[in-house]
């Protein structure tokens, strides 16, 4: 049926062509117009084809990044807590998938990505006003703006969810919800605007004052969440009984599954940050994978040497540390640079988590700072060292010639730019988080009661428990 229609169309075309050829030339309309017309159609078809390809890839990437929060991060974190807090910890991640989504639609997308000043966007895209299906060439010329919006939303969801690792097992669910909403407005949206937004202070591709290279969110996601996590751990204080009572992970198996989902999801996070399905996405994909692998090995070797055994928890923690560190660098460095960044991050974060935390004695329960804060800071600095203009010619002079990117390419000034970006992320996170914590503390209170903490978050905050393996219940 279909084929017959095709044949008919082909015959009709041939007939038309024949007519055109046999008609005297002087009777023709200007052939130039016809050629221009066909060219325009061809251009349109090419553009449509590219948009289909890029859009398909970006929608998959958005889904992959959501998978990092739930189930990835939810499993990773909940395996590390005690059995009585497994659901409470999962809910801290899952709540972000609901709350931050609605907030994003209402106002926080606009604050992050609509044009505004150097520090924060405006409100004219609140309620997604003007965020339609035509691309915004400033951000991504070949995908609908709504695809860009939903992709960026997945980043906004996972970032606050990461902080939850620092106050695990002791924060009220209500307080956590209020804290996260305020944090998304006060810390995340401004930071995302400064690094990625139009006219942002640190934006490297849209003419920021201090161009900071942050491909997929080393500063925006990991430094902000990690540093805010440290502030939370210090402000809330230790869990009851820490560090005297043993609080080992209740299921490294859950954490293992979660970490592996994070690894896979991170391809969407980093390679998707190319915002198209072109060669830069390949670069970022390869670097992401190499960084994770090298860091898993780095952490494991450090642990093996110091502790005598390479643990499963160590290997997966190392992989996450590597993924964090390669995030800002993913679209700027060579595969060999990625291996170096990963290996350094694995060893560095091992040292931060195992040594530095016990020196200072804070209870960053699931090492949100030790992995994300420390790994993100290291990665953002190393991006300034390893960035190559051959991978991503981001800096150009007035004539359009490519300028060197990182220190190893002969651009030491980039290290300073990176340091400025990092310092702003640290400063904003510390100040913003402290203010929000204080506000929530004096209004509704941050911590659960001692009794609720002993009972566990599952029962005290949610009225249920995660596991029912009692023989009497079967």
């Amino acid at each position, binding site marked *: 049926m279909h084929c017959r229609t095709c044949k008919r169309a082909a015959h009709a075309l041939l007939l038309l062509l024949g007519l055109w050829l046999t008609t005297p030339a002087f009777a023709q309309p200007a052939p130039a117009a016809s050629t221009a017309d066909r060219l325009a159609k061809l251009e349109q078809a090419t553009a449509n084809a590219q948009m289909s390809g890029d859009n398909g890839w970006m929608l998959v990437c958005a889904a992959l990044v959501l998978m990092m929060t739930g189930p990835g991060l939810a499993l990773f974190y909940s395996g590390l807590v005690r059995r009585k807090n497994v659901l409470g910890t999962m809910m801290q991640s899952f709540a972000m998938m609901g709350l931050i989504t609605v907030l994003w639609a209402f106002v926080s997308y606009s604050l992050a990505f609509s044009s505004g000043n150097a520090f924060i966007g405006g409100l004219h895209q609140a309620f997604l006003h003007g965020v339609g299906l035509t691309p915004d060439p400033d951000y991504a010329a070949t995908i609908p703006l709504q695809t860009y919006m939903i992709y960026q939303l997945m980043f906004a969801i996972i970032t606050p969810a990461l902080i939850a690792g620092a106050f695990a097992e002791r924060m009220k669910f209500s307080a956590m919800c209020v804290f996260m909403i305020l944090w998304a407005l006060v810390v995340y949206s401004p930071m995302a605007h400064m690094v990625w937004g139009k006219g942002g202070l640190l934006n490297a591709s849209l003419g920021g004052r201090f161009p900071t290279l942050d491909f997929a969110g080393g500063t925006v996601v990991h430094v902000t969440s990690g540093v805010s996590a440290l502030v939370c751990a210090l402000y809330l204080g230790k869990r009851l009984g820490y560090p005297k009572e043993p609080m080992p992970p209740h299921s490294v198996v859950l954490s293992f599954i979660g970490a592996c989902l994070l690894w896979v999801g991170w391809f969407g996070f980093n390679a998707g940050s190319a915002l198209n399905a072109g060669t830069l996405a390949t670069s970022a994909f390869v670097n992401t994978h190499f960084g994770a692998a090298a860091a898993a090995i780095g952490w494991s070797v450090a642990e093996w040497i110091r502790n005598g055994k390479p643990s499963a*928890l160590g290997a997966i923690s190392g992989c996450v540390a590597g993924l964090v560190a390669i995030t800002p660098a993913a679209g700027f460095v060579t595969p060999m640079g990625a291996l170096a960044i990963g290996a350094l991050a694995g060893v560095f974060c091992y040292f931060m988590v195992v040594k530095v935390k016990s020196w200072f004695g804070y209870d960053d329960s699931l090492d949100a700072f030790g992995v994300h804060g420390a790994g993100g800071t290291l990665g953002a600095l190393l991006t300034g060292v390893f960035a190559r203009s051959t991978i991503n010619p981001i800096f150009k002079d007035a004539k359009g010639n490519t300028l060197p990117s990182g220190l190893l390419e002969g651009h030491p000034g980039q290290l300073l730019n990176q340091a400025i970006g990092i310092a702003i992320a640290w400063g904003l996170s510390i100040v913003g988080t402290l203010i929000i914590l204080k506000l929530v503390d004096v209004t509704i209170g941050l911590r659960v009661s001692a009794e609720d903490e002993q009972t566990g978050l599952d029962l005290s905050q949610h009225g249920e428990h995660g596991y029912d393996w009692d023989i009497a219940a079967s």
Partner: protein
Amino acid sequence: MQKIEAIIQPSKLEAVKTALVEAGVEGITILEARGHGRQKGHTEFYRGREYSVDLLPKIKLEVVVTDTMAEAAIAAILGAARTGKIGDGKIFVTRVDDAIRIRNEDRGDVAL
């Protein structure tokens, strides 16, 4: 009638069970337990934090047998549960006054 309680290594449960059945013991109850005797625990490391685990997983096994069966049952457990290392566990023997089968209220040795 005697009750024999044995605390054994979990890995030896299958061997002990088989040995008891071969010795003619009809009923066995086991409980998953944690504990320690003179054996020290072990240490576990999670992200560099050291946790000493001193209550180790054990199996507690209970059988109630006639007086004449008792020594054979004890010998079966000893033979199957021993590795020769610290932590093999212990056997406790106590006298039992009576046994009652719930189904038909049989009493004494016939109820075993």
